[in-house]
C-alpha cells in the first residue's frame, strides 16, 4: 500500500546546505534557533525536517522547523542529550551544515483541524497551523506540558498567529490540569469534524491517534525515531505500518494514524 498521494508529493532532492545560526534565544527550557540557509532553494513544508551537524558529534540531529521565511529557518530545540545540549549553547554566528529538505510533510485538512502537541512538538504544529489558517481552516490547539514551563514557547509560536491555545499541565500550574488529549476528546465528543494532528511523546501521539480512529476522523502524527543518516541509507528508523516496515526519514516522519501499528 503506497502512502496516500497527499503524503507523497514529488520531493525536491536534498543536499547538504550551509546553515549559520543568526539568532538563539531561550524559550523556557527550549531554545529558539534561527538558521540562515541561503543556498536552500527548496521550501520546507510543516513536518519536514533537516539533519543538522553539531560540532564534536559524529551524527547529525533531526529537527523539524517551525518556520521557513526567505532564507531563514526557525527551529525549536529542547536540550535532551549531549548533542542538543551542545547545540543550544552555540553562539550566534556558528556555521553548521544541514541536510535539507528531508521527509514528507503534513497534508492540509479539508475541514477543521485539531492540533495536539507537547514540548518541541509545537514547532512543526505551529507552522502547520499557520498554513491551515492561510488555507482558511479553523484550528484548535491543545498543548500539554508537565508544568507552566512551556508558556513562552506557546506564546512565541502560536500567539504570533493570533491563535488561542488550550494549555494543559500535569501539575495544574497553567491552564487545565491534565493532558491535552482530554481537550481533543471533548472536542471530538462534541461532534467536531476535525482532522487530528499530533506531535509529541509516543504515548501522547498514540492517545491522539486512538481518539481520531475512534471518531472516524483522519489523523496524522510525526514519528520520532532515532535517526542516523536521515536519508534512507542506514535503516535505523524502522516503523511498523499496516503496509509492512517503513523508514521514518523517507516514508515519514508524517504517517496517517491508521497506517501505524501502534
Amino acid at each position, binding site marked *: 500500500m503506497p502512502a496516500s498521494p497527499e503524503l507523497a508529493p514529488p520531493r525536491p532532492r536534498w543536499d547538504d546546505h550551509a546553515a549559520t545560526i543568526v539568532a538563539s534565544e531561550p524559550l523556557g527550557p527550549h531554545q529558539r534557533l534561527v538558521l540562515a540557509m541561503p543556498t536552500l532553494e527548496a521550501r520546507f513544508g510543516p513536518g519536514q525536517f533537516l539533519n543538522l551537524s553539531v560540532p564534536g558529534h559524529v551524527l547529525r540531529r533531526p529537527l523539524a522547523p517551525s518556520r521557513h521565511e526567505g532564507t531563514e529557518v526557525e527551529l525549536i530545540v529542547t536540550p535532551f542529550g549531549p548533542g542538543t545540549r551542545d547545540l543550544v549553547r552555540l553562539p550566534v554566528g556558528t556555521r553548521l551544515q544541514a541536510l535539507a529538505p528531508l521527509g514528507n510533510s503534513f497534508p492540509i485538512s479539508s475541514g477543521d483541524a485539531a492540533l495536539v502537541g507537547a514540548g518541541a512538538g509545537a514547532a512543526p504544529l505551529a507552522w502547520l497551523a499557520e498554513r491551515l489558517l492561510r488555507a482558511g481552516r479553523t484550528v484548535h490547539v491543545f498543548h500539554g506540558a508537565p508544568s507552566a514551563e512551556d508558556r513562552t514557547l506557546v506564546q512565541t509560536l502560536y500567539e504570533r498567529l493570533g491563535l488561542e491555545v488550550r494549555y494543559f499541565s500535569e501539575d495544574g500550574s497553567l491552564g487545565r490540569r491534565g493532558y491535552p488529549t482530554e481537550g481533543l476528546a471533548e472536542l471530538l465528543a462534541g461532534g467536531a469534524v476535525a482532522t487530528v494532528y499530533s506531535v509529541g511523546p509516543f504515548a501522547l501521539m498514540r492517545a491522539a491517534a486512538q481518539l481520531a480512529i475512534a471518531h472516524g476522523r483522519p489523523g496524522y502524527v510525526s514519528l520520532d525515531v532515532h535517526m*542516523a543518516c536521515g536519508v*534512507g541509507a542506514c535503516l535505523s*528508523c*524502522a516503523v511498523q505500518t499496516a503496509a509492512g516496515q517503513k523508514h521514518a526519514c523517507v516514508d515519514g516522519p508524517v504517517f496517517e494514524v491508521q497506517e501505524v501499528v501502534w
Partner: protein
Amino acid sequence: MNRLEVDFLGVRFPNPVVTASGTFNFGREYAHLYPLRRLGAVTTKGVSPRPIAGAPTPRITETPMGMLNAIGLENKGVDAYVADELPWLKAQGARVIVNVFGDEAADFAHVARKVGPYADLIEVNLSCPNVHGGRLPFAHDPAAAAEVVRRVKGATDRPVLAKLSPNGPILPVAEALEAAGVDGFSLINTLLGMRMDLERKRPVLGNRQGGLSGPAVKPVAVRLVYELYRHTDRPILGMGGIASAEDALEFALAGARLVAVGTATFGDPYAPVKVIEGLERELEARGGRWVDWVGAAHTPD
C-alpha cells in the same frame, strides 16, 4: 600521474576509497550528490537469502566520537536486490563490493552465486550469528568461518574477502580462512558496546547491545590491520573510524590497500569523496603514490 590508482585482487580501482557496508545502502540515496563511479567502489548493505525485518528500535545511538548500531541485518533478501538495485548500481559505472551473509555456510554461497554477476568483489560478513553454531558469530569460530569461505569460493569466481570482527582474536580465524582459500580480508566490523538510558534505566538500543563504529574505534582498527598485515600476504581492506585523508593514510601505513568510509558518511554525505580529494592533496604534498604508503610503517622487529 594518478597517485591513487590501486590494483586489488586483479580489480583496478581508480582510488582506494570505498563505502562501508550498511552505511550507504545500495548507493541510490547518494547518487544525486556525486557520480558513484567517482568512488573506489560501493560496498552494499549486507544481503541474505531471504528478507530480514531487523531489530526493534531504537537501532542507533551516539557515543563519544562514535555510534552504536543494532540494525539487526535488515535487508530485502537477495532476489529483491538482484532485481532492483544491483543492475542499477552497475549501470552507474560503479565498482561494486557485495556484502553477503546468512544463517549457515550454504546461505552465504547461495547469495554469492546470485550477486556474483554484479560484484567486483564479494565481502563475507562473518560477524553475523552462526545459527547452527550456538549463535556464536562465525568470526569467532575458525572452522565455521572457513567452511563459509570454502562454500562461497565454490559458488563464485569473484575474489572473496572475509570481513573480520574485532570482538575476538583475529589471527586464528585469519589462518583458517587462508587455508580455506580466502583471497583477502576486510576489517574491522563493529566492536560490541552498550549505552544506558538514565531516564528509562534501560539500555538505549532496542537490542540492548550494538556495534560501535566511528572515530572512537580508529586506534583499535589501525592496530588490528597492522597486526593482520604482519601475518598475511593477502590484501587488506581497512576500515573503522575513517573520516579524513589523514585517517586513510594511517590505515595505509598499517597495511590497508583499500579503505572504507562508513559512519563518517552519516555526519557528512560527501565524506567518501572528500577523503578521495584529500588523499590527492596529501599525496601531492607528502609525495609518493598510495601504494607506496601501504604497509610502510612495518619495520623489522
